[in-house]
């Protein structure tokens, strides 16, 4: 007999934490959500992730109780895991229902490659495009466009990156679906033109309307306010 306890330490607007939430919900794993203020981190978070001191952190505790008449042997594992994509892979291995990662090694490697590549390239370019203006923004938009073109090729002809069902790459890239439109509004710019990128646009609609995903998104007005503040801070820092 096992008693599982799963806790997710996260910050409401974090796209990294959102990946973990999606993985848990798609697999119907019960968990406790613990909201962390990243501008005023708890001592507990600093203990759970002493290296980076960041969210998300998944803590998995498993109490194994002995069967009746067996020698008492309680095993308690209190396991914090950090880094969102690593957490998603851990979740996928621990709870087998609704597999996320492709089984074939080449497809798995391909999905991992795109998850980290898009995060590095579009995450950075998108942030700059959202928070800066003028030449800096233009340069970032050009860089964003290059990687978005590649994503368009990847999604062509598919409902999700995972095929007929949401897979690892959808979870990894899902932030694009709900966050890019917010960034576009905050930065007064356009990264994903529907006519230019019909595949991605269609995927965004499919992803956001999925029954598990649609109720998980942070409120749009709250996100707009948050990112407007981040943009203002960024611009002020730049002036200094």
């Amino acid at each position, binding site marked *: 007999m096992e008693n599982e306890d799963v806790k997710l330490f996260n910050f409401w607007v974090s796209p990294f934490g959102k990946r973990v939430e999606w993985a848990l919900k798609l697999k119907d794993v019960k968990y406790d959500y613990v909201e962390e203020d990243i501008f005023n981190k708890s001592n507990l978070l600093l203990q759970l992730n*002493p*290296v980076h001191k960041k969210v998300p952190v998944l803590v*998995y505790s498993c109490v194994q109780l002995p069967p009746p008449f067996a020698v008492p042997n309680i095993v308690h*594992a209190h*396991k914090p*895991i*950090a*880094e969102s994509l*690593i*957490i998603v*892979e*851990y979740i996928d*291995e*621990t709870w087998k229902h609704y597999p996320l990662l492709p089984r074939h*090694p*080449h497809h*798995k*490697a*391909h999905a*991992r*490659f795109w998850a*980290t*590549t898009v995060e590095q*390239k579009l995450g950075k370019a998108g942030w700059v495009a959202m928070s800066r203006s003028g030449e800096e923004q233009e340069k970032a938009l050009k860089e964003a466009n290059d*990687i978005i073109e*590649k994503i368009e090729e990847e999604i062509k002809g598919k409902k999700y990156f995972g095929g007929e069902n949401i897979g690892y790459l959808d979870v990894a890239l899902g932030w694009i679906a709900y966050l890019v439109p917010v960034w576009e509004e905050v930065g007064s710019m356009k990264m994903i033109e529907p006519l230019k990128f019909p595949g991605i646009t269609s995927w965004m609609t499919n992803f956001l309307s999925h029954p598990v995903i649609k109720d998980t998104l942070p409120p749009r007005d709250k996100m707009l306010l948050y990112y407007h503040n981040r943009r203002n801070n960024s611009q002020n820092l730049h002036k200094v």
Partner: protein
Amino acid sequence: MAEIKLHGFWYSPFTWRVKWTLELKGISYENIEEDRFNMSTQLFQYNPVYKRTPVLIHDRKPICESMIIVEYIDQIWPHNPLIPTDSYEKSQAQFWVKYADDMIFAVESIVRSNNGEEKEKAIEKIWEYLRVVEVQCFNDEKNFFGGDTINIVDIAFGSIVKFLEVLEDALGVKVLEYEKFPHFHSWYNNFKNTPIIKENLPDQSKMVAFLKFTLFVMPFTSVTTLSCIGI
């Protein structure tokens, strides 16, 4: 058996990672040395996003990015495993691999630095990383990050430390202050003296000559990443 080819650079720590993995598992492969000034069109087709090495071709399919390749190899050829089978231990190993890769930005800062002060700051940044590893990874007595045997974390860090050794000689700087990081030092000695790793380390003087040539024929300000110097 499907053919295996590795497109790489003899001087790149990212290529070393894949080579070491193939050698540790005794896998036969064809080594294709790419010319950084004249990279093959094949390479650009295999890696259109980054246009860089290493790229592993297995059964005519490309796999890119060094540690993704290493995990792929371990999955296809599970003997002499490099990745823990326990999911939690695996997640911890993957965490430290990512940490090693984050350290590469600090290594690039040394290469990019324009004066002594910047260089010192960059070196101190690396020390911060090594301090964390010294405290977090070596609580108990073990020869390698993987315990008694090499694992993906050893491969990831080993390549960067070897490159730092070369950088120290090429630039005349001291980065690996081992008296500050005794456990890390002990680990690296174990790692580089493991027979298969030792046989597959690049020649130090050849590497130093290569790096000096590369760094001093290109203006420092144009070097932004190790990729720019074809690493």
